[in-house]
């Protein structure tokens, strides 16, 4: 049974901010939230990980509300090259010895 629910696909335009929300109603106390990105014909790439509130790095921001039942990956001012599949993973879906990928969100950036 999947631990997360995220939209199958999203479209946006260059220069826009894109927010991808992931639901994880049954997140456990010790679970971290991890996001990976996969460009066409490439391997997945770690983007960001967080536990609560807000985390920001050079690629994205991750917003986690107090109840932690959802999280939002925010990509500022996207470009065509941000077209990719984005995977939200919770707890042991991204654990030490294996990652269990879902179908992710296919983000398509339009000119």
């Amino acid at each position, binding site marked *: 049974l999947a631990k997360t629910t995220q939209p199958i696909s999203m479209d946006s335009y260059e220069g826009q901010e894109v927010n991808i929300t992931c639901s994880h109603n049954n997140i456990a106390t010790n679970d971290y939230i991890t996001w990976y990105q*996969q460009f066409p014909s490439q*391997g*997945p790439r770690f983007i960001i990980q967080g536990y609560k509130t807000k985390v920001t790095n050079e690629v994205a921001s991750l917003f986690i509300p107090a109840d932690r039942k959802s999280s939002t990956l925010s990509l500022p001012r996207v470009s065509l090259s941000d077209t990719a599949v984005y995977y939200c993973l919770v707890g042991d879906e991204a654990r*030490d*010895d294996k990652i269990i990928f*879902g179908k992710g969100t296919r983000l398509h950036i339009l000119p």
Partner: protein
Amino acid sequence: EPEVTQTPSHQVTQMGQEVILRCVPISNHLYFYWYRQILGQKVEFLVSFYNNEISEKSEIFDDQFSVERPDGSNFTLKIRSTKLEDSAMYFCASSDTSNQPQHFGDGTRLSIL
């Protein structure tokens, strides 16, 4: 930034033949993984490897599959007798500790004819 490199980028093999996919993990990493992605489907875990032994494997990783770290730099996946359904992208990944993100290579596209 250090990268995981995989060779070849594309491998075409006749059904029933053996194939070896090669990976060079990031040099100071200790944990190694193989995943596969059939066209249009999810990325699936195959096997994890640490301290020269398999730490976990999935149901996909049956007796036809094996992994090896023959020297200090390479990590290989061997499929002994390939089947049509083995056609997929195969990704190698590595991490430096057990609780750090995994770094993936760009994959080998395996086509079985």
